[in-house]
């Protein structure tokens, strides 16, 4: 499997299906683990890192995941390849930019990835479309059990799974849900969402773009507490309480728009499709912004003739590194804007 074989398609977990898919794009559960008998990475020499890498790579590659897996050595990978992996959420930005022996094992369907030698020796995650955190947890826990048959984890009777940073210690779990919240922002209520997340000690990040800026109204909501609370409790709280509430708020905001400002709503979504179908140059920021409006318009049945999978595909394939890898050449921003507009135009005009 080569990277350019997956870079021309949408990840399964971003396909637009699954429970509550109008608002919940995808679910992810990540586990942080370290090997017993080794120091954490900040204290490891390059040969020690290689030893850890080889050990974990062998353990993960030998698992039966019901899908083919492939390995990419991040220390030797081209910049563009690494950027594509980051854009697809298969590795973290930190993993792409770090130094030293490190890599990632990826399942063909992209539902599973295992970063080796990121901040911890092993950080593995399972993705699924829509709200499926329980399914993610069950799957990653089974994979964790299988790996544990082959190696010994650093585990403490009091502190649980030991991690390089004490903010991850205990369960080592990070539960994340990717949310599309355009109506909350449009109705000026997104700050309420931030405040609610903060009061529940949850972290909010943007799904696209660098840093925390949430371009295109996509937000990633994650737990921060990992000690003193079990994995199942965290997953249940998200699944049964936190996420349904946010989905309800977003849907209320959508209803509000429909009742109080239908013209404004239709103006925004119609402008979005008009621009996307006709623009000749489009920046990645503008594309995310307009595609977000379009996605909302389609989900609210104000726009027909475009499917959610097509929109999701455009979100993914028009990211800067994807454009370049798929066109087989390095492109300056102006060239990317032209190609991006061309891809969006031809895809939307097919429908």
């Amino acid at each position, binding site marked *: 499997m080569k990277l350019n074989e997956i870079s021309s398609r949408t990840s399964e977990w971003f396909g637009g299906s699954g429970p509550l898919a109008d608002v919940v794009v995808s679910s992810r559960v990540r586990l942080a683990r370290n090997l017993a008998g080794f120091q954490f990475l*900040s204290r490891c020499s390059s040969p020690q890192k290689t030893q850890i890498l080889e050990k974990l790579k062998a353990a993960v590659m030998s698992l039966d995941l019901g899908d083919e897996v492939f390995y990419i050595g991040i220390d030797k990978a081209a910049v563009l390849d690494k950027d594509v992996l980051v854009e697809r959420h298969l590795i973290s930005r930190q993993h792409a930019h770090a130094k030293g022996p490190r890599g990632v094992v990826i399942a063909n369907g992209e539902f599973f990835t295992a970063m080796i030698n990121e901040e911890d020796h092993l950080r593995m995650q399972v993705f699924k479309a829509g709200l499926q955190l329980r399914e993610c947890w069950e799957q990653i826990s089974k994979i964790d059990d299988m790996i544990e048959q082959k190696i010994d984890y650093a585990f403490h009777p009091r502190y*649980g799974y030991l991690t390089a940073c004490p903010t991850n210690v*205990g369960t080592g779990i990070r539960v994340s849900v990717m949310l599309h919240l355009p109506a909350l922002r449009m109705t000026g209520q997104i700050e309420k969402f931030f405040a609610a997340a903060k009061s529940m000690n949850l972290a909010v990040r943007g799904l696209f773009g660098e840093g925390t800026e949430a371009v295109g109204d996509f937000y990633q909501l994650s737990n921060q507490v990992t000690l003193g609370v079990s994995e199942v409790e965290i997953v249940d709280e998200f699944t049964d309480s936190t996420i349904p509430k946010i989905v309800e708020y977003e849907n209320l905001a959508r209803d509000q728009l429909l009742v109080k400002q239908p013209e404004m709503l239709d103006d925004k979504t119609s402008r979005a499709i008009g621009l996307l179908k006709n623009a000749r140059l489009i920046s990645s920021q503008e594309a995310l912004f307009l595609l977000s409006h379009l996605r909302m318009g389609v989900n609210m049945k104000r726009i027909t003739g475009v499917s959610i999978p097509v929109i999701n595909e455009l979100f993914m394939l028009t990211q800067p590194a994807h454009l370049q890898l798929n066109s087989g050449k390095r492109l300056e921003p102006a060239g990317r804007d032209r190609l991006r507009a061309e891809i969006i135009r031809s895809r939307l005009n097919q429908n």
Partner: protein
Amino acid sequence: MQCQFCKNNTATIHLTEITDGQRSETHLCELCAQKQGLTVKTQIPLNELLSTLLSVQAQPEPASADDEERACPHCGITLREFRKKSIFGCPDDYDVFEKYIQPIIQYSHEGGSTHCGKVPSKAPGETKKHSELSALRRELQVAVREENYEAAAKLRDKINQLLDTKK
């Protein structure tokens, strides 16, 4: 998007002001924003936040200057180094620095101080062997660091023996 002031650089700072219910947006590059006297509030990195927490946290037993410089016998990291980066050097640091780091751990986990949740399936019945193994491994690390290869070889054999009886 271009900077509204110099019309040259890309605008990376987006300022939204609401005055008397009127919303206005300004888009600036970093340079022009600085000239306008705008300081950019970036997200505080987690480790910085932790370091700050650590420095203000009331500690039942404040670390003395000697404690600050005391190094973990297994990885060599000092408390001072941990405070700087909030990253441990090895799994043993959780025990070595326990009394100093406990308040931070509890703070970042809403008071949580003891693991509850999944336990490695190997752990329960074999806890003893487990800890013996990890003790041997620690000794092995020390022996290797001290270049005491004779002792290291013996330890390695012991470890392998234990691992074999496990199967």
